[in-house]
């Protein structure tokens, strides 16, 4: 009698701590995802300034600039919650911006421009923050998913309504996956 009571109490305590742990992790995952959004928004706000700063000098790169503007518009039009689509569109924007940053190197007048340099540092900073917040999200997401899938938590997790979260992945055909072509002949 007493033994079975103790067993029930112990199991009850274990269930409670497991449930609370999972709730905490789920909230952390949601928070980490919002962090990515904050950084993406930052990037969207930055692009118009950047484009207008380099537009005059980079007359011959209209196509590249056009691509950046289009990718930005596409990324901003993604419906909230659609993570796969968002990851794909933002990936395209990252690729377009990377191309722009590479081209900038061949314009000495741009490299000497203090305003452009400031914006470029701001862009590098934002790109890194996007990368790190993505990394942090994936880390914490993996932690949450692993916790749900290990024994014996896996028996109860789905019963309590926990679902594994999607990692922030680049789609297989994302331009961000393409190898950077480096031309060393000059």
């Amino acid at each position, binding site marked *: 009698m007493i033994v079975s009571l103790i067993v029930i109490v112990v199991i009850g305590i274990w269930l409670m701590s497991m449930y609370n742990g999972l709730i905490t992790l789920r909230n952390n995952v949601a928070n980490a995802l919002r962090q990515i959004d904050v*950084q993406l928004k930052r990037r969207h706000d930055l692009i118009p300034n950047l484009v207008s700063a380099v537009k005059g000098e980079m007359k011959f790169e209209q196509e590249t600039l056009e691509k950046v503007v289009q990718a930005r518009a596409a990324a901003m039009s993604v419906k909230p919650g659609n993570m796969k689509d968002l990851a794909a569109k933002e990936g395209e924007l990252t690729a377009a911006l990377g191309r722009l940053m590479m081209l900038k190197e061949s314009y000495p007048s741009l490299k000497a421009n203090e305003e452009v340099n*400031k914006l470029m540092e701001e862009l590098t*900073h934002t790109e890194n923050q996007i990368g790190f917040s993505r990394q942090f999200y994936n880390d914490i997401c993996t932690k949450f998913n692993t916790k749900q899938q290990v024994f014996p938590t896996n028996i109860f997790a789905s019963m309590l309504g926990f679902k594994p979260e999607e990692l922030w992945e680049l789609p297989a055909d994302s331009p961000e996956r393409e190898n950077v072509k480096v031309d060393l002949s000059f």
Partner: protein
Amino acid sequence: MNIYEQQEENKKNTVILLVIFVCFFLFLGLGFDFFILGWNVNQTQLKSTYDPVTATYSAKVVEQHFVPFGTIIALIVGCIASFSGYRNGKRLVLASTGAYPANPDDPQEKIFINIVEEIAIAAGLPKPVAYIVPDPDPNAFATGVDQDDSVIAVTRGLLDVMNREELAGVVAHEMSHIRNYDVRLMTTLTALVGAVNLISGLVTGGGSRRGYYRNRRRGNIPAVGLAGMPGGLGSRFGGAGSASGRGGAAGMPPYVMAILFVIWIIMIILAPMLSTILTMSVSRQREYLADATAAELTRNPKGLISALEKIYSATGPTTSIGKGIAHLCIIDPRGSYMEERSGAASDLMATHPPMQKRILALKAMAYQHPGA
């Protein structure tokens, strides 16, 4: 040891450190009462044997009633000092190096501020405040007792020689010290052990922003203080104690008194040194963990490897950073390479493991992730 154990251990050790500090003051005060003011344990018994009926005797009893001023004062001072050391440690450390908040209008310092923000996101921590130490030798340290109230400081010389990746490695190393609560323990230790010296340095006007050259001269004052403070107190008490000691403690053979007194003095001199040595040796293990965590945060061990190599090859000492906060830095600011030597002395006194070993450990990590 994983990061959670490390965090718990650091929090626990900080509390132990504060308790030991107060106990040390208590010990100091008790000894002062016992040897110098002549507080005799037997006096309370003496009072009870007297017959209170006789008026003349009872007057004497009142006279004999002893108030342990030394103990009370020492206890109050100890509590206040440990509390203020815990609360103001960060400010003391920053003031002693002459550090100032990074200026976002300076392109290089702006990059540093940005990198601190980036690594804070990677570590999932609140953003620490970025500080600059005006010193040409590359070095860096972190300080603060809470994760949401911490500081990462680098020297101006570090900003001059590092590229973005290397700087990110250094900042990530300091960020892991913050995440592990290493900085809480280290900052408290610094404030408690060095409080007297740092304060005296401030009083003489060293800690201002302009105080670069004054700091240069002051560079090793905290070191003198470590041994000097208790030694000075001990000898002062010793002088007075031998004069009045015989008269004070009646009812005890003189040789017992002498032995007790010597033990008291030795304890006072050795206690802070022992605790410092202990912390030094413990702090070396932290460096490996911080290096590893830095590599994990940036996913780029190569950045930190190249940064450490650059810092290592700059052989000059970091003159703005005193010996008192050596254990907070990414490399020993004394430039003496105590950590490069082997043997008992360096095992006891070095604050950092040999740089070659640290670089090797990171290279092994980089090799496991060739894609990084």
